[in-house]
């Protein structure tokens, strides 16, 4: 058993000479991990609660936001998941990671937020998004 550091921000705990028991990865350059996440408020006074590897959130229009990465991702084949909710008229919302204005890039992607039964895009008090690659 031993700790092997293979580079900045990553390493593994190995058993004997064969298997990797636990792998630690905290660098955005590693794959199969959460590459970025952010939680923010999109209504009225926009604010960001917390984030990882997200430099900024740009509020483009109601229910439309651009998430900008601090460190670029290796390619655009990443997966995004997210949800939104509010205690007001918008009970919950769904998120789309594609807008006609901006296809996903290695440095940013655009989110559109909808709520079933309501016309157009919506803003909510709690939006959480995670990116995996």
């Amino acid at each position, binding site marked *: 058993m031993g700790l092997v550091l293979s580079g900045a921000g990553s390493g593994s705990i190995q058993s004997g000479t064969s298997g990797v028991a636990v792998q630690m990865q905290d660098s955005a350059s590693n794959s199969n991990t959460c590459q970025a996440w952010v939680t923010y408020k999109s209504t*009225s006074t926009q*604010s960001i609660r917390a984030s990882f590897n997200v*430099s900024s959130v*740009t509020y*483009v229009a109601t229910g439309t936001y651009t998430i900008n990465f601090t460190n670029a991702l290796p390619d655009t084949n990443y997966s995004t998941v997210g949800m939104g909710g509010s205690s007001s008229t918008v009970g919950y919302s769904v998120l789309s990671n594609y807008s006609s204005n901006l296809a996903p890039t290695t440095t940013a992607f655009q989110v559109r937020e909808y709520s079933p039964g309501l016309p157009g895009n919506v803003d909510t008090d709690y939006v959480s998004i995670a990116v995996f690659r």
Partner: protein
Amino acid sequence: MSQVIIFTNTSGNVSVCVPTGELDIQTVLTKDCPAGAIIVDSSTLPQGTDAAFFDSWKLSGTTVSVDMPTAIAHQTKTLNNLAYAEAQHRSAKAGIGLTNVMSDADWATALSTARAAVTASTTTAQLVAAIEPIQAAITANAL
């Protein structure tokens, strides 16, 4: 007060870029925003009911304000969307033998009054107040 970056986007409206704090705001300005974007204190952005009309914000110099003709157009669209959904709801209630709280004639009058109030509004507070009776009537007529 926190600082944000604002700029006029390709739609002609105002975009607000909020840094997370992972990078300093000057770096974010260069990295995430187009040329011409400026850093402002967030307290200088429209507040109160003006904040709710984000899609009607316009940037002039370093000042962001609500463009009232655009806000009136947005609120008219909101009112029409509410009216359309309620029309379907009223028809459905009648179809299953339930009586709508407000008669068809009174509903039509309320809509007409709201449309006139929206058009005549000179502030966003008036725009908000203009459709409140319609929102209340819709709530009262829910199943």
